């Protein structure tokens, strides 16, 4: 088994599919509910399969922060510029293979959007670091 982080982005990544171009505030409330319901269902299915580890959503606001030097306050940069790659949230899964991780990501990406059509949004798939093998 291997853990994968599935990252959902507000912005950034490769060129979006036409279905994923409209901002969510242009959807109907029912379409938003259907989308959120789908996401919840995916998490439940993963739980039932014994593959679910974690899921979290992030607020769109935030800043970059760094050390400002001894005795100085932290240096901040933000809020994020419109063009910046922006993470919306993640799901962590523990699955048998990379193929299975891709299958889950593709399923997440099929969530309904405007007009109930599949969004085809990009999901970033990143393997976790694992432990070193034993054999020398």
């Amino acid at each position, binding site marked *: 088994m291997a853990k994968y982080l599935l990252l959902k982005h507000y912005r950034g990544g490769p060129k979006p599919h036409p279905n994923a171009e409209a901002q969510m505030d242009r959807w109907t409330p029912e379409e938003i509910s259907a989308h959120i319901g789908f996401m919840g269902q995916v998490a439940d299915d993963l739980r039932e399969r014994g593959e679910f580890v974690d899921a979290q959503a992030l607020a769109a606001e935030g800043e970059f922060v760094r050390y400002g030097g001894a005795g100085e306050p932290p240096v901040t940069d933000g809020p994020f510029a419109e063009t910046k790659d922006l993470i919306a949230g993640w799901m962590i899964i523990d699955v048998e293979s990379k193929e299975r991780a891709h299958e889950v990501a593709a399923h997440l990406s099929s969530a309904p959007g405007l007009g109930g059509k599949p969004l085809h949004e990009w999901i970033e798939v990143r393997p976790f670091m694992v432990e*070193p093998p*034993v054999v020398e």
Partner: protein
Amino acid sequence: MIDEHLLRELTPQVLGVLVRRGADFAAAEDAVQDALVEAVRRRNGEAPDDPKAWLVTAAWRKFLDARRSASARALREVAVTLEPPPGPAEQADDTLLLLSRCCHPALTPASAIALTLRAVGGLTTAQIARAFLVPEATMAQRISRAKRTLAGESFERPGDVRAVLRVLYLMFDQGFAAGDPGAADADLAVEAIRLTRQLAASVPGDPEVAGLLALMLLHHARRAARFDASGELVPLARQDRSRWDTAMIAEGVELLQGALVRDRLGEYQAQAAIAALHDDAPSAEETDWPQILEWYDELLRLVPGNPVVVLNRAVAVGHVDGPLAGLRLVEELAPGLPRREAVAAYLQERAGDYAGAARRYAAAAEAASSTAELTHLLKQAARLNRAADPRPPD
């Protein structure tokens, strides 16, 4: 109260008794877990004279209770026909029967490991979940799905011992790689050794079972030296050999010798022989590489074309026939193979090509799949780069 260690020892035996009495595996397993919970609750009470008989009786009652609550009609039938016979519990050894059930080929390795730890190892679902770093609910689902997968399979005779060995090997590997777990948590490497010991006692004639146990002990003996105080991976050549467990090595070597005289060589015996030769060297320089290479040749005959074995053999070839001979073998392997670049870098440095080695260590670091490996490889690249281009003193 019954000692926890004893409880875990008794778990598979009690499960075996229930299964032989005709209980369905999943139901029997649940009943044994319930009985264990009751045993733990009785902590303040007197320890029974015969803990196994007590557990069998308790588990059998739990099984009957579950059957009763499932159906009132079943109550009458069960009460009449399935009342347990009095007297001591059976002594027959069901270890292989249970293990081959839990390591059934229909299960994925991860599910088989989880089910084995729960049903035969006697660990709680919470402990197994922590070992795998997943939520308890996820692990509970994984285990119950595994049981459902097995529900339709017949379960009278033990299955293939090879499938069991493979699962125990993977369990050990997973636990061993994880380093030192917290005191409260399950240590999968220790569990794998315990279960393999049980299996070896149950099928004493199988040299591959003994070979696998030897392999585990010969690796486990070096565990304390494998990571330094800050958690960084220490490669075999730089380990402090005084920290190796010599008693464990001696036991592993003795087991291996006993297996080899049966003259039925298998991959676990061959891997154990290689581990034993490393363990036997007083220092890295004194490693008997020619003999290790012979064992890699044997191993490759047993698992022809296995790329991991080919890669590891290339290191031995590098020590015996020179680094360039080893490098030629590495170059023939597929570029994406894990650790290929790291082995190539190691051989390239031994061949005196420090700049090339530094580049390959850096490339290997980029492809590393563990943080311990990443740190180790980055340091190798940094060491070589620093030697080539020393920074002026501040």
